[in-house]
């Protein structure tokens, strides 16, 4: 009896706030043409959504963006891990790369867009480049910190077993720093998705959810604009959850 009510209550609670917001939205959209331009009535949103799903446009753009973001993420993260590892192993590398990394990192990514457009064009490569850079920053930092903080005892064990430098790296440092590296990749994913969106908005036309946002803006289709924003946020949420779950699994498996 009571548990059922409690369970139902617990399930419904998260939906209260969104329901209130939707009602407020519907009310706002009824207040005239100018308001309806931005607070698109919910029915229009619904029909817009059906339209997008029917001709496969949404699926196409979502797939293109995901592909782009993940490619850039993988490239940037791999490079970041390699650089971080190098910096952790070699003081010279750290002294050379560190200052450059810290200065360039301060420039907002979107501010680099004009420079990238000039030096690398406005096509697919430029978008992948900006995603790669966004993924690069957190992975380098996390890999470097992770490796540097590897417990001295592990290193001593390695020295005792007279492992070569490469072997120490592969069998001692890398596994020990893996949790930090994985955290870095998780952070990188968040930035990579944002950079993917920014790239699609600012670089040349190509399939992608950001491009859909732009095109629908140009055609005055505010319903598609809102739907695109919603899809972007939902995808960000899903990606984030996915990566954190996988990260947790991997880390737990490691320390077991």
């Amino acid at each position, binding site marked *: 009896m009571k548990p059922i009510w409690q369970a139902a209550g617990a399930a419904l609670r998260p939906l209260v706030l969104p329901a209130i917001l939707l009602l407020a939205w519907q009310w706002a959209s009824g207040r005239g*043409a*100018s308001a309806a*331009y931005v607070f698109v009535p919910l029915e229009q949103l619904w029909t817009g959504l059906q339209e997008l799903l029917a001709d496969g446009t949404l699926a196409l753009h979502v797939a293109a963006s995901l592909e782009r973001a993940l490619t850039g993420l993988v490239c940037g993260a791999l490079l970041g891990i390699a650089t971080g590892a190098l910096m952790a192993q070699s003081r010279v590398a750290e002294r050379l790369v560190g200052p450059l990394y810290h200065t360039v990192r301060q420039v907002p990514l979107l501010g680099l867009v004009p420079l990238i457009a*000039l030096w690398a064009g406005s096509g697919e490569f430029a978008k992948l480049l900006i995603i790669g850079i966004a993924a690069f920053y957190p992975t380098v930092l996390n890999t470097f910190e992770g490796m540097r903080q590897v417990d001295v005892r592990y290193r001593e064990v390695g020295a005792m077993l007279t492992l070569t430098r490469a072997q120490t790296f592969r069998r001692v440092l890398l596994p020990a720093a893996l949790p930090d590296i994985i955290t870095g990749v998780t952070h990188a994913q968040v930035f990579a998705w944002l950079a993917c969106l920014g790239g699609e908005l600012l*670089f040349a036309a*190509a*399939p992608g959810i950001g491009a859909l946002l732009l095109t629908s803006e140009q*055609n*005055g289709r505010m319903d598609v604009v809102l739907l695109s924003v919603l899809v972007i946020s939902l995808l960000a949420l899903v990606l984030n959850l996915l990566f954190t779950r996988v990260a947790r699994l991997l880390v737990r498996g490691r320390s077991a």
Partner: protein
Amino acid sequence: MPVPPFSQRRRLVGLSAALMPVLLSATKVRAAELLPSALRIAAVSRTGPSGKTLFAGSSALVQEQGWLAAELGKLGVKLQWVPVTTNSVAVQVNEAFANKSIDFAQYGDLPSIIANASGLRTQLVVPGGSMNNTYLVVPADSNARSIKDLKGKKIALHRGRPWEFPFSRLLAANGMTHKDVRILNLNPQAGASAVASGSADAFFTLSDAFLLEDKRVGKIIWSSKAAPQDWKMRAELWGDSAFLQKHPRLAQLVATAYVKAHQSVVGENGRENYIRHEVAAGQSRSLVEREWEGDNTDWNTRWAPLFTPELRAHYAAGAAYARQARLIGRPLDTSKLYAPQFVEQALAQLKLQNLWASR
């Protein structure tokens, strides 16, 4: 060495004469080997349904006709179309010219002036185009009737884009300068939002103005349809000067292809065909038709690929405006911007000299 007898000299001359064509063709082969692997043309594009990139304007026709791709293919050169998003055409094309990633571009007059003033060398190869109209939009509940009512008010205008020049002509015709209004440098989407929310008092743009009218959030109080021809912005085919000098044969092919496209547009069903292309690229049909309704420029004249005195005057005035509005740092001599030889050759080749009799 004794002087060879007369007959032997003759034989030598004869031999050299016979060898000449071989030598020449050898150098020709050498020159042919220096052809680029791809010829790249940038054109405004939109992502249509099913993700295809569709081009706008005469580039779509050139692509459809396929003649250019075939001719270039015979020379072993690939034709590559480079898509450019409508909301930042000027910037993307100029940057692409700067880093040599395109050879030709179909884009506007003012950006080309800015590019040349900053040191890039491009030249106009094929003039003529759809000659977009420009519109002045105000919020639906505004009381402004003309540009004069907007003195001291905020007007959204994307700077450095070709329609800035018609805007300056509008101001000048009403005795105003750009100091009499507050210009908000916003890209077309932000400008539309600004005027729809009433936080900008006006918005100056292309036919996307109709979208605001359709949504009943804006009303158009001025359009360039009735204005003099040289008020209208131009979007035409420009080419990288170095490329034009190095590969005149390829440039000629491109020019001929575009002249052919112009020819088909002014021909039978040309207009209908053109509208079909624009609609396929994502514009709504009513928008395209309203854009041309009541326009005082003859369809035929728009597409005339002729280097008329009006054209030259237009660019000179554009450069003067750019200097005055501090869009460029140094004054630009526009007489060097033209490469008319390719169009002349194309017209002669296609025997179209009389189609657009020059006035």
